[in-house]
């Protein structure tokens, strides 16, 4: 980029600086200044088991969501990349629907579908597949279902964009040279899609770290995530200091994840073309 055009990003920088960087910095600063100067808030986080447990919970739930999104999203993206234009448009439309619906509405819809008296349970019972309704909601299953649905597009689109750029003659060449389908996939196709897979996983995992509504509405008592605790500290207790400390932990954790991913794949190779 030539220096002459640098002024073009001034409005964006101002906007981000005033409305994002400064408030975030202010909250993070609170973690060491409120109620008094020092690291007392961080000591609390380490000393009381509940915070570390919730942090661990957050990582496990986000990780599970990312893995499930990859397992579901990969074949989906493959189908999208290798099907006719009409079917592709339909698939894109279906995947994007969640984006156009409020998170709250979606969470309530899942409640209606998955509860004991809900459509899924009642259908399974009436078809004789299960005798008694099973617990599909207010537990980890409910949380993951809701989160995977919301975050799936973040997995599918990076994968799709990588897959459409793969030279179709490469797998054919591998097959001609005698690679059986599984080996062909593992040695040729999968490595070529790896940048998309890693980016998608990273996007899903990092978005999931801050999730709040879905675990609150669809989860059980054991599914508390860190964003819920941050909200509680500010909203219920006016405790900006501890909330700031939790936010620091979340931010540092996210940055570490990003750094790890950066080592394996260049984000530019997926997003930048």
């Amino acid at each position, binding site marked *: 980029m030539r220096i002459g055009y640098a002024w073009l990003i001034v409005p964006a920088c101002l906007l981000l600086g005033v409305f994002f960087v400064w408030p975030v910095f202010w909250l993070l600063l609170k973690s060491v200044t409120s109620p008094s100067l020092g690291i007392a808030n961080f000591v609390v986080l380490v000393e*009381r*088991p*509940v915070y570390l*447990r*919730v942090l661990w*919970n957050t990582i496990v739930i986000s990780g599970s969501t990312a893995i499930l999104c990859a397992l579901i999203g990969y074949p989906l993206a493959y189908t999208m990349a290798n099907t006719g234009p009409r079917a592709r448009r339909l698939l894109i439309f279906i995947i994007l629907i969640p984006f156009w619906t409020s*998170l*709250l509405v979606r969470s*309530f819809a899942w*409640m*209606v579908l998955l*509860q*004991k*008296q*809900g459509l899924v349970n009642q259908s399974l019972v009436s078809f004789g597949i299960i005798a008694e309704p099973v617990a599909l909601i*207010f537990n980890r299953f409910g949380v993951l279902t809701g989160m995977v649905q919301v975050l799936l597009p973040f997995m599918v689109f990076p994968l799709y964009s990588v897959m459409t750029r793969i030279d179709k003659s490469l797998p054919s060449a591998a097959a001609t040279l005698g690679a059986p389908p599984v080996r062909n996939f593992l040695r040729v196709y999968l490595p070529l899609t790896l940048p998309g897979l890693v980016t998608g996983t990273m996007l899903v995992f990092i978005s999931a770290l801050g999730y*709040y*509504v879905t675990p*609150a*509405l669809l989860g*059980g*008592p*054991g599914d*508390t995530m860190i964003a*819920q*605790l941050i*909200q*509680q500290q*500010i*909203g*219920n*207790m*006016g*405790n*900006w200091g501890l909330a700031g400390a939790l936010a620091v932990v979340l931010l540092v954790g996210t940055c570490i994840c990003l750094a790890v991913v950066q080592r394996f794949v260049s984000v530019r190779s997926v997003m930048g073309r």
Partner: protein
Amino acid sequence: MRLNNRKELMELIAGKKLSRRDMLALGGSAALAAGLAGVSSKARAAGKFDGKSVVFASWGGAYQDAQKVCYCDPFAQKTGANVIQDGPMDEAKFRAMVEAGDSVWDVGDITHEFLFNGIKNNLFEKLDLTKINVARVDERYRNDYGIGDIVWSYNIGYSTKTFKDGTHPKSWAEVFDLAKFPGTRTLPGNSPNATLEVAALADGVPVDKLYEILATDEGIDRALKKLSSIKDKLILWDTNSQSQQLFIDGEVTCGMILNGRAYDAAQKGGQIAVDWNQNIQSIDYLVIPRGANNIETALGLIDEMTVAENQAKLANMIAYSPTNKEAFATIDQKIVPWLATSPENAAKGFVIDGAFWEKNLEKISERWEEWKLS
């Protein structure tokens, strides 16, 4: 998006509690009566706050719509003041504005818990009680810094489909009795207040010793242990809409629900009723943020909100309970049984100890989150 805020959420999700048409149907006659009263008093006191503005911040939705019609409009008519509606109420925002020395709001509608937290943190103006006719508000529902405008309560809710003809659980001990009253129950999960109280009550703690016992670690252990006894059959609700949904869909047979929410669910055809025994009352207070710009007008508006006819009109519209007992004279008899401050219902319950929760919320919240994860 901030979501733990119970009221903000419930309005957000459920939209309006009642449609405007329902409101008109319920409050039509009262509105007409109040309208006439407004005209006559306008002649009497016109101009007291001419040209003055006052910004009123509340929780949005049907509640604030009703407050506008029942409190703010008559006040504007009588005094010439311009009442500006704002919100939704956000306690973190309230605090940030006061601490920055620049509160946009002049009157705020806040929860019982925040009242005590705000007093401790010096967030409110001390009210000039010569400007407000405080005597008409029950003394349990007012304070030097806040005047209660409505009361609501945590109740035993039950499914009328499961429990017919008075066979429902009639005490918190019975709600916790899985053998006698089968089925899944529900309690609020986002904050331990009220939940811890009912667990202790269910374990046999008498009301007059309740907060004394819960102030000790052993007392908290005792309440949490009682909660553990029903954990396998417990769904924690996070929003009021969710509590309604659980009852309406038959997902739970009994548990805790707010009186207004049960009323709303019943109006919409839900098979739900409440028992008033051991109800826990909580209050919405009107406060003036410290350093507010229009304190005189704000005091006038708060005074208007304590007027019996206004509170009655609001109760008729959305079934929130008045703090001025004179209001019962004009409240629809069909609504009275749902109100927390009706003499009969109030006598069966008690007011939540806001000072206790201000002091102990942080400690108990940690224990509560730990219990949830265990």
